[in-house]
């Protein structure tokens, strides 16, 4: 069976133990079983698809994605969208979100706010929205005194991939984002499993915690 270099890079990342931060020299190079140069090529690929982030000899991995290699093809559009996300803020509070919802035509709200609407599990914080023309919306926000930066609570995402099954897309976005959104993905999995075609594998302890904390709500 032929394995591509991209798959080898992902498998090398999957072999790493769970750590908050990895060292290129001590962790990643040995896990590739290849030369240092090849390890750096793998790192470059993982960086390009947005699952690895780092400076010099240290890096962080989106372990949520790495642990779902069977879904990688389905996750790539979400990962790419998140990698090209643009953050905007004016008051840096709920007002920005209200302004956005009132004035912008968006295609789909995803992550925090959509997950909250579906599951009522975690408080939403940032508004992630897919828009058709990201530059046009960005310019409109800037004309309305929004600033682009790292801390904004309104986040524009380019439309990449399939949006025919909204719940599936939100679910994949949650896995692709990782962190706390993984718990949103688990909550969606528990409540809307029959609407999901592609499903992730999650840690049983984490599933148990989400199950315990989910409140009984009316499913539409």
């Amino acid at each position, binding site marked *: 069976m032929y394995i591509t270099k991209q798959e080898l890079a992902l498998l090398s990342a999957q072999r790493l133990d769970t750590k908050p931060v990895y060292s290129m020299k001590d962790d990643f190079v040995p896990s590739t079983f290849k030369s240092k140069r090849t390890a750096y090529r793998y790192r470059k690929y993982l960086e390009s698809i947005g699952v690895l982030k780092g400076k010099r000899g240290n890096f962080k991995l989106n372990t949520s994605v790495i642990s779902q290699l069977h879904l990688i093809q389905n996750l790539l559009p979400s990962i790419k969208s998140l990698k090209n996300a643009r953050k905007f803020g004016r008051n840096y509070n709920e007002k920005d979100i209200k302004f956005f919802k009132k004035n912008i035509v968006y295609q789909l709200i995803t992550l925090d706010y959509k997950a909250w609407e579906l599951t009522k599990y975690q408080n939403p914080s940032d508004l992630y929205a897919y828009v058709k023309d990201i530059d046009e919306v960005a310019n409109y926000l800037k004309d309305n005194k929004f600033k682009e930066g790292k801390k904004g609570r309104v986040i524009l995402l380019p439309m990449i991939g399939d949006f025919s099954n909204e719940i599936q897309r939100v679910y994949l976005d949650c896995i692709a984002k990782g962190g706390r959104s*993984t718990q949103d993905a688990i909550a969606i999995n528990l409540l809307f499993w029959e609407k999901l075609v592609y499903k992730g594998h999650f840690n049983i302890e984490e599933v148990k915690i989400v199950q315990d904390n989910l409140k009984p709500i009316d499913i539409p």
Partner: protein
Amino acid sequence: MISHNIKKYRHSPLLNEAIEVTNDLGSVTFIGAAAVFLHTNKDRGSQDLDFIIDYDATDEQLQEKRYIKYNDRRNGYTTKRKTIFVDIYKNTNADISGIPTKTIINTAERFEINAKRGRINELKAANLEVLIVMKYNARRNQDIEDLETLASYSRRKIDWNQIKSITNDDYHYSRIRALMHI
């Protein structure tokens, strides 16, 4: 103990519950999502509130205040408001996420917040450095995300010497530093 001036926090059910819990039980130290929120004003927590009761409290005393043990969750209780689950740690616990409970209580910071109708409430939460080391020790997906949030909102306030003395270990100290600078 460091005290923060009155700060305007975002409306948050977690914060409201933290105020109610402090009113019910008196001296408690928040850890977890509520502590991250108090340090960053960014609320992305699950619907549970973790805190340590600073004094000796028995299950009977908690029951009198209608904090009822929930199913088989180790530290899980429901309150009379039934809006949020609370995870209660007693001051008799030896440590939480590798930090001695006494250290968490003794180094806690005070936060004065503007609550309903201009009333000032005071909450106590684990100090920034202790919180960072606790999150690093737990290392779940959400803890890493919380560390990223703390890094982007409170990086300048971090006392790295204190983190070094809490970890008492050069390797973990350097890993935390690397993580929070990526």
